[in-house]
Structure formats: structure tokens, C-alpha cells
């Protein structure tokens, strides 16, 4: 184990952690408002194809701005799709588990349909904003060698933590998730706040998806998010609905997923590669069991999670 290997591994960990951190940060806000959206995987795919298609088609005209426009469009497209979910579960009070699942099936289908003409095509990677002498340095690339989305993910989770715990708006959002009837009776619009939270969750899932198609492998492949949206959902439970633990948990899963990539190259080859591929999912189940068995110590699960709210009755 030399320095170059360690730095290589660290860079990989950061790379695989970023999309689940982005998606989980969005879902944290959604769940804090009392709604569980199982459509993360579908919204990620909608974001992935949107970001890719925009960059691919308009990249030459937009120049340096192309990836930024691509990511913003990815966030917008996923946020719009999340409002379809929002309308069903909020205005029509439909079942949240089934509706979220429908959104995922829809996202898989829609992204394959739009992406049919782009399979195997590539776009330039949404690369580091830092100058080459920093980003390309064999040591300093561990800090400066990443796509802007990596830094955005870290800032986003910190801002969300601050927003939820230190601002009035965050308090209102938590109140809506904790006791919707009380929040409604003191005059807050439960549904409007939940619509906004769902839109934010959608936008973050869209950015997470764009990270797959514009950074990890800057090309389009069907279902390229490969179930990472579900890991993001488990991560929110793992975090006990707290932003700080979410960040730690994301890197824990990131390390597990990196093991898969390194297992073959290093001395772990006595276990089949499929074992390492299944590892994050096995660990997610184990971790859910440990977290749930330990009871609610330090967990801040919203009391109204998954419960529909119909104000007219």
C-alpha cells in the first residue's frame, strides 16, 4: 500500500459516494416533511437522461456552460416529475408506497424511451473546475480533482442540516412532518410545504442522476443508476433522519461500494465478485436491522411519515 494507491482509493470513494449523498439529502427533506417518496431511482434516471441529452445536443453551442445547463435541466426535469407524485399523494391522498414505485417504473420507462437514440454515445466529462496544476497533482487531486457536483453535494448536505435545525422555515417543515394536523390548525399550509419538499427531493435526485451520466461514465446506458436510488432511501433511515449522520453514512456505503471495485485487483479475489456487488445491499439490510433494533436512540423519524393528509376532512 503506497500513497498513490491510497489516494486512488479515496478519489474512488468520493466518486461513488456523491450520487447517493445527493439523492439522500433530497429524500431527507422530503421525509422530514412527512412524505416517503420511493421514486428516487426513477427521478435519478430522468435526471440522468435529461442532463446527458441536453449536454449532448446543445454542448457545442453552450461551450463551457454546457454541463452546468445540463445539470440544471436534469434537476428541473426530475423536480417536475416529482410533482406528478406530489399531486397523487398530496392532493389525491393516494398510497405513497405504490405511487413512489409507479414513479420509479415510469422513470425507468421514460428514460429508456428518450435514451433509445443515445445508447453508447458520450459527452465530455463534467470535470473539476480547478486548474490542472492542482487538480492533476498526484497528491492534491484528493482535494481538488473532482467534478463541481462533488463539492455541491457536500455543501448541500451541510446547508440542509443548517436549514432543518437552525432556521424558522426548517422548523415549520419539521413541524409539518411531526404533526400535520397541529401545523395545519396554526395556519401553515401542510400541502404547499410538502409539495415544495418533494420538488427539492426531485431536483436533488435529478442532480444525482446527472452525476452518473455526466461524471462517472459520461455516456448513456439504460438503467445506469443500477439501484443506487434504493441505497439512498436506506441511507436516510440509517441516518436517523439527521444530516450529519447522513454524510457519515453515505461515506460508509461509498467505502463498501469501492471495495467491490478493488476486490478483484487486490487480495480479496477468494470471494466472488458478485459477493462484493451485493455487499452494499446486504449491508443496507444489516444496518437497517441494527438501527431499528437499537430503538429510537438519537433517531429523529418524523411521526407522520407516509400518512396522507386530507385537510378538507
Amino acid at each position, binding site marked *: 500500500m503506497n500513497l498513490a494507491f491510497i489516494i486512488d482509493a479515496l478519489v474512488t470513494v468520493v466518486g461513488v459516494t456523491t450520487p447517493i449523498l445527493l439523492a439522500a439529502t433530497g429524500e431527507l427533506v422530503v421525509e422530514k416533511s412527512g412524505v416517503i417518496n*420511493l421514486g428516487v431511482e426513477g427521478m435519478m434516471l430522468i435526471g440522468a437522461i435529461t442532463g446527458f441529452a441536453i449536454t449532448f445536443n446543445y454542448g457545442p453551442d453552450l461551450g463551457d456552460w454546457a454541463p452546468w445547463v445540463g445539470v440544471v435541466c436534469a434537476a428541473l426535469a426530475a423536480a417536475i416529475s416529482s410533482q*406528478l407524485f406530489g*399531486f*397523487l399523494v398530496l392532493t*389525491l*391522498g*393516494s*398510497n405513497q*408506497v*405504490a*405511487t413512489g*414505485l*409507479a*414513479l420509479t*417504473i*415510469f422513470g*425507468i*420507462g*421514460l428514460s*429508456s*424511451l428518450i435514451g*433509445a437514440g443515445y445508447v453508447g454515445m458520450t459527452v465530455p466529462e463534467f470535470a473539476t473546475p480547478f486548474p490542472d496544476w492542482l487538480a492533476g497533482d498526484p497528491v492534491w487531486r484528493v482535494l481538488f480533482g473532482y467534478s463541481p457536483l462533488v463539492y455541491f453535494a457536500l455543501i448541500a448536505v451541510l446547508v440542509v442540516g443548517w436549514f432543518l435545525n437552525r432556521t424558522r422555515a426548517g422548523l415549520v417543515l419539521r413541524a409539518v412532518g411531526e404533526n400535520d394536523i397541529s401545523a395545519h390548525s396554526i395556519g401553515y399550509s401542510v400541502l404547499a410545504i410538502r409539495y415544495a419538499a418533494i420538488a427539492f427531493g426531485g431536483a436533488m435526485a435529478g442532480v444525482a442522476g446527472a452525476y452518473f451520466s455526466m461524471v462517472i461514465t459520461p455516456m448513456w446506458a439504460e438503467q445506469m443508476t443500477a*439501484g443506487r436510488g*434504493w441505497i439512498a*432511501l*436506506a441511507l436516510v*433511515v440509517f441516518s436517523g433522519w439527521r444530516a450529519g449522520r447522513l454524510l457519515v453514512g453515505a461515506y460508509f456505503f461509498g467505502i463498501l461500494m469501492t471495495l467491490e471495485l478493488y476486490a478483484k485487483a487486490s487480495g480479496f479475489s477468494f470471494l*466472488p465478485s*458478485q*459477493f462484493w*456487488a*451485493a455487499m452494499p*445491499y*446486504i449491508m*443496507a*439490510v444489516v444496518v*437497517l*436491522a441494527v438501527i*431499528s*433494533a437499537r430503538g429510537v436512540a438519537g433517531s429523529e423519524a418524523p411521526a407522520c411519515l407516509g400518512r396522507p393528509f*386530507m385537510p*378538507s*376532512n
Partner: protein
Amino acid sequence: MRIRFEKRLAPSRFMQVATPIASVLLTMLLGAAIFELIGFDGPHAIYETFITPIVAPYKWQDVLTKAAPLIIIALGLSLGNQAKIWNIGAEGQYIIGALAGAGVAFALPNAEGFWAIPLMIGAGILGGMAWAAIPAFLKTRYSVSEVLSTLMLVYVALQVLNYLIGGPWKDPNGHNFPQTPPFTPAESLPNVLPGTVIPPGFVVAIVLTLVFWLLTTRSVYGFSVRTVGAAPNAARYGGFDASRTVWSTLMISGGMAGLAGILEAMSQLGQINLGFPSGYGFTAIIVSFLGRLHPIGVFLAGLILAVTYVGGQVAQTVVHVPNATAGIFQATMLFFILASDILVRYRVRVIRDAPRAKAAAAGASA
């Protein structure tokens, strides 16, 4: 003018039947409109997707073949959904069931006797149950949400499949493709009557539909499951054990998924390969909701979803719409059925904001 939802005292029977039909029709209309928008012949594409599989003489067998696993899995899921237990990992139980059945076949060399088939089917059911036992144990013992645990295990099951068919169970004569050796005739299920087009799984689906109909409408067990879902406190008071409901519904839905898996492997593919996990476990969730969790409804919904599978392929070759559209149709149908759920439980009132009506409304609510 405003729209108000007023809660019904009892769910509307009429809406329970009318909304799934309306959802399918609306999906067809919306699909035609969208196909027109993106430059295909909309009505033609819808005709090929939804009608051709029914009227074309040789498509029926395909529809019944696809419907069988969907119905079998969805019957099990509907039972759990009635108790508000969400097994969304039937795809994983389907895979493990098929692998368990195949494992029995490979463990018994020269399985020539008549017992090979029942043994494999039994192993398939047990495999699915075992895979569903993990979330059942975690939920009853550690209160882990079955929504996430069942789903995570799908991805684990996929890797188990990849490992087995690419490693220990790889066909030595398979040109290095990741696939198992083919099942022998003694390990395969033929069509029910020689010369007919009815796949064996579909006969099983018909029988199970009747069994589940008796179970849900004519047994105390079915009543207890519904009560646990609708009124957990009343169920506890009535002596219906919630954790027994978790175990039983997950065992039944897991066993059904495993059964569907081994039947599919034994009668359709004749081996297990990379294409085996085809998403039936997920589509069955749509079938369950489109059928309004009722066995007869599930049976009909399974046929409709099977039509979209077969029709999707027809439309792909005839009208050249992309293959992914079948998935979008299925999701749209689920969206419509979930959106229309409110009509079952609520009455829609259109209130005109005429001054007198306003005053009356204010008086009534005061």
C-alpha cells in the same frame, strides 16, 4: 366554483369496478395522444399494443404465458397489501425460487422419476418463502420496514443468480455463456394438453385464483388480514396477531413468487440464464393494484398487463415504437388507478360559489 371531497361511509362498489376500467381506457387515450405528439401513428400504435394481442390468432398463447407468472405473484402480493404489508421484492423471491428448484434438479443426477417435477416445484415455493422470511424476521423482530428490506434483497438475489449461472452451475457445453445446463424432459413441464396452446402456469393461475378467492372472501384468515390492514387496533382487540399476519402474508407472497419462478424456468426457458429476471415481480405490483387486491380483479388485470407486454413487442415491430413504451404504459396505468382511488373512498362535490350557497356552506360548517 370549488371541488370538495367528502368521505364516503363505505367504499363505493361501483367505483371499485369502474376505476380500473377507466384507468386502462385513459391510458390508451393518453398513449395515442403522446405517440402522435412524438411522431408515430398514435391510434395504430395503440391498436397494435392493446387489441392485436387479443384478436390475432397466434398471440393468445403469448398473452397467457406472460399472464401466468403475473397473476400467480400478484395473488400473493394482494393478500399482503390488504394487510398494508408491502412486499415489493417479489422479483427477488421469484429468482431465488427458480434457483432453488433448479438446484434440486442439479443435485439429483439423472432425475428421471415422476417425482422430479413435484420436488422441483416444492423447492421453488420453499426458496421464495425462505427469501421472504428474511424481511419477515427483520420486521417482526427488529421492526425493519419491509419496503426497503424486500427491495434490497432483489439486488442480492440478482447477484446470487449471476454467481451461480456464471460459476458453479454454469453449463459446461454452453459456449461459456452464463447459463445453466438445460433441464431434462423429466425436469420440464410440458403444455397441459399436447397440441394445445395453454401453458401449464396458466392452469395453475386459474386454480390459485379460485383458492385465493375462497381464502379472502370465505375464511376467517382472509377477514383477519383485511382487519389488520384497515383497523390495526380493532384487529388487536379482536385477537388477530399482527406479527402472525406479517409472517403469513410474506410467506404466502414469497411462496407464490417462488412458484411463479420455478414454473417459468421449467416450462418456458428450460434453463436459467441472464435473461431470467424479467421484471415480473415488479409488474405484479401493478397487477395487484389494477385488480384492486381482489383475486378475480387480479386475474383480469394480469391478462391486461400481459397484453401490454405482448402488444409492446407487436407495436415495436409494426409501428416501430421503442420497446420501453410498454413500461411507460404500465406505469401510467398504475398512476391512473392510484389517482382514481380517491373516487372509491370519497364523493366528489362541485360547489358553486353563488352568494346563497356560500352562506349556506358557512352556516353548515359553523
